[in-house]
C-alpha cells in the first residue's frame, strides 16, 4: 500500500526565503522525522527559498543519517522538489559528508587527528 505523502513547504516552516541557520534546518529535520516515524512519506518543497547554506542542510537533511534511517528508506520516502539547479550540488555535498560523518563518527575523528599530525 502506498504511503500518504505530506508536503513540507520549507519557506513556511522556517518563515524566510533564506535557509541559512542551523536552527531552521533543525526545525525542518524535526518535521521530517516526525512524519517518517509516523509512517508517512514526505515531499520537501523548496519553492521560494532563495539562498541556502550547508549549515542549514547539515541540520535539515544530513541529520537524517544520525538515526536509524537507511539510504533505501530515505530514497523511497523523501522527495525533494523545486530546488534551483545550482543548489542541487549542495545537497549532494551535504549528504556525502553526512554519510561519512555518521558512518563511524569515532573512527572519523581519529582519522582527522592522524591526517593533521601525520602519525
Amino acid at each position: 500500500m502506498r504511503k500518504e505523502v505530506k508536503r513540507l513547504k520549507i519557506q513556511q516552516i522556517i518563515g524566510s526565503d533564506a535557509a541559512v541557520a542551523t536552527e531552521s534546518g533543525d526545525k525542518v529535520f524535526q518535521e521530517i522525522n516526525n512524519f517518517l516515524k509516523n509512517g508517512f512519506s514526505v515531499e520537501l518543497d523548496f519553492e521560494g527559498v532563495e539562498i541556502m547554506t550547508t549549515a542549514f542542510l547539515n541540520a535539515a537533511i544530513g541529520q537524517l543519517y544520525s538515526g536509524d534511517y537507511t539510504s533505501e528508506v530515505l530514497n523511497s520516502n523523501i522527495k525533494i522538489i523545486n530546488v534551483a539547479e545550482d543548489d542541487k550540488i549542495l545537497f549532494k555535498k551535504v549528504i556525502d559528508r553526512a554519510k561519512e560523518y555518521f558512518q563511524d563518527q569515532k573512527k572519523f575523528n581519529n582519522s582527522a587527528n592522524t591526517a593533521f599530525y601525520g602519525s
Partner: protein
Amino acid sequence: MRICLPISIKSDFDGYQCLIDIYNEVLDAESDTIDFSFQNTKWFEANLAAGLGAIVELIENKGKKVIISDIRPQQQDILQRNGFLQKYGYSRISHRSGTIVSYQTFKPNADNLFRDYIRNELLSKPDFPTHSRLLGKKITESIFELYENARTHGRCRQAHTCGQYYPNKNPKRLDITIVDMGNTIKTNVNEFLQQPVSGAKAIDWAVQKGNTTKTGKISGGLGLSIIFEFIELNKGKIQIVSSDGYWEYRKGETLKKDFNGIFPGTIANIEFNLDDRSSYRLKNEVSLDDIF
C-alpha cells in the same frame, strides 16, 4: 587613556596586528575612558570598523567608555557614512548611492535581520554584479556560510560586520568583514584535537574539507571549504584572524603566520572579485532522485 592609531590600517597582516596591539594595550587599562585618537591616521580601511567595533564591545563590557577623537575629514566621512561613528555622537550620513556596506552588529539569532542587511546593503547596490545572477548568489551564499560559522562555532554574543565596495579598482571588488568575539578557532580546534596547535595551524586545519570540531548529531566541515572553493574560482581573497593565528589565501597561495599577542575572537575578511566572468554553471547536472 589615549590610544593613537597609526597612519594607516589596512586589511593585511600588519593592519590586524595593529588591532591586536590596540586590544592588548587597553586590556588592563585602569582609566574609565579609552580615547581612540585618529589624529595620525590618514587611511583606515572601512571594513575594519567591524574589528574596531568588536574591540570596543569588549572594552565596554568592562564598564569603560570609548570615545573617538581627532578624526580627519576623509576618515570621518567614510566612518560616518557606514554608521560606525554614530554611537560616538557623530550623525549618520545617507549612503544610498555610495560604495558603503554599513557597519552593523547582529545577535546570534538574528539571521532574518542579517538576510535583510545582505539584501539591502549588497543585492540592491547598483555596483553589485547584475551581469551574473549566479555570481551574486555565490557571493551571498559565501557570506551566509561565514556568518553561520561565526555564529555557531564562536557562540558569540553578537557579530560585527562591515564592508566596502571598490568599484574603481581593477578588478572591481567587494570586501566584507565579519567579526565574532566568541571562542577562537584555536580554542575549538585544540579542544577537539586535544593537542596544542598554533593559531595559524588551527585555522589551516579548520578550512580543510571534512574537518570540523562538531561532534554532535549535526555534521559539519563543509562551510569554510565551500567559501574557499568559491574564492579560488572567483580569484578573490580570504583572510582569517583568530587568536594568534593569521591565515590568508589569494591567487593560489596560502600564507600562515602567527601574531604577537592574541585577538580574542575571529575576524574573517573576504575580498570578492566583482569582475569575475566565470559562469558558475555545473559541468554535470545533479539529480535529486535517489540522492540519499
